[in-house]
């Protein structure tokens, strides 16, 4: 049985840059053949993780495996791993079409016709040079190379930066359509969680170089619930649950809790006049990575600041 992409395994991976610990004893599995969202605040270690998987660098300690093998100087896995960084690793002074020729020659799975379609979609002139492009167009060209490479493991690290909204949505739609037609492993790192949420099958949240959670997106979404109502009733309902955040406006309180509610829980909440609602992935992410919560300043059931949305 063959899998439609490369899986990734990290075991006890630590990456230091001098005194800075970018990744701290990370254990992680990325399932082959999924779109995995790699989420984290600035400096959480997302780009470093991508660099290790793509063999741009070696970890200070620990083990990185791609498709079961160490990726460093691995002639078999190297052509199948494509990391597209916001910085754009392209031939700056060569025309875009010459860049495509270069990447097509290096990537066995590169689809030149698909690249031409993407160039048209993003209105990229094949005769222009990357060094002369705007930030958005540079991002679009990075996306073009990343998607057209059809690598068994494609890591797109903040590739949306500088793209206008229509281009971003064109990117998301194209990514999904191509992924369905050519299943492979795609790791998508972005701060625009609301926009990419619908694409994700698995989610990895990094925080200060550690894995905060790794879970499939559907079950994660199901675990986030907002409870809104009078303060006393809300406090009673959330007692003993994992509270991610609390907002208060007058006598009304909204609490975000993490955990699956049973039918009995739902019935009890309704009986006491509480409103239950879903929590978008982005809100869950914000609550989970809130530095006050992380540092223990915001404890469960302690009212937080801020008004209700």
């Amino acid at each position, binding site marked *: 049985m063959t899998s439609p992409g490369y899986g990734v395994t990290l075991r006890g991976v630590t990456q230091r840059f001098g005194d800075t610990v970018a990744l701290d004893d990370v254990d992680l599995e990325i399932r082959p053949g999924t779109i995995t969202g790699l989420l984290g605040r600035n400096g959480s270690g997302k780009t470093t993780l991508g660099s290790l998987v793509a063999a741009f660098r070696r970890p200070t300690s620990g083990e990185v495996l791609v498709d079961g093998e160490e990726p460093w100087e691995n002639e078999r896995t190297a052509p199948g791993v494509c990391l597209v960084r916001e*910085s754009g690793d392209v031939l700056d002074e060569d025309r875009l079409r010459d860049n495509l020729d270069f990447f097509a020659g290096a990537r066995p799975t590169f689809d030149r016709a698909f690249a031409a379609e993407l160039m048209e979609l993003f209105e990229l002139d094949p005769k222009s040079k990357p060094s002369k492009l705007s930030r958005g167009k540079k991002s679009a060209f990075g996306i073009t190379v990343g998607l057209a490479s059809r690598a068994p493991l494609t890591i797109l690290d903040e590739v949306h930066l500088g793209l206008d909204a229509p281009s971003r949505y064109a990117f998301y739609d194209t990514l999904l359509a191509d992924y369905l037609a050519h299943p492979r492993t795609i790791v998508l790192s972005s701060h625009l969680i609301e926009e990419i949420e619908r694409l994700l099958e698995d989610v990895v949240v990094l925080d200060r170089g550690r894995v905060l959670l790794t879970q499939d997106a559907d079950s994660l979404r199901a675990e986030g619930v907002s409870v809104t109502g009078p303060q006393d009733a809300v406090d009673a309902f959330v007692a003993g649950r994992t509270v991610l955040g609390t907002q208060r406006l007058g006598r009304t309180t909204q609490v975000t809790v993490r955990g699956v509610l049973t039918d009995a829980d739902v019935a009890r909440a309704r009986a006491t006049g509480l409103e239950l609602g879903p929590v978008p992935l982005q809100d869950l992410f914000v609550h989970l990575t809130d530095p006050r919560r992380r540092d223990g300043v915001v404890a469960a059931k302690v009212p937080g600041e801020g008004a209700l949305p």
Partner: protein
Amino acid sequence: MSAAVTTARATRRPSPLAHALSRQLGVAAYLAVWYWAIALVVLVIATLVVWRVNGSVDVSIVAYARQSAIWFPFSQAILLIASLLRVHVAAGMTRRTFVRASLVTAVSTGLGYTLVLSGLLLLERALHAAVGWDAEILEQGFELVGSSFPTMVGELAPALVLANLCGLLVGVVYHRYGGWWGTVTLPLTVLPIVATLALAGEWFGSFPLDGLLDPAGDAPLLTGAVLALVTAAVYVALVRSTPVRTPR
């Protein structure tokens, strides 16, 4: 093994080494054509100017091109690292492939420039002889004893090949350790080419070393070969373990 890889194997494409080599040699050939085209024009103009001023040209004008034929490919090799190493790895090829392709390119470039320079020097000598001029080399420290094409190539090749290898070494040290260390270590990374030039010429005229190495003999060729091997070995070791830096 993944399905994507199975598909990949069914697709015909050049090997990573052939692909990297074609890119690097292509750029080197393109730059060489421009370099020698410009050099030829400059050499012809310089010859005409000297002839108009002096009435004859008793010096070798082509010999003056040696320094630029050393340092232009040297800077070209530095740029090769700066512009291509990161993109090469990002395109899914290994450092091993890059090392092999860049070494072949460096040595080929050095030998190519040597062949052209030797040919031009011989052509100039023949032309000068035909009109009754001398072709003396005035550059201090540049001795060209050989008069045949093979001996001339043997004398010129060590410096011209090492210039390319040193350029690669300088480039990877800058890439790996940054601008500060790249600059501080320049005396070390450029040492092989400087040493070759010195040993092949009269730089050590006032030192006891003079006489130990006969410029007309095999010593410069041998020392050049040893220095080239050492330079290449250090370069290989540095590239094979270097992280890919993020451009600022």
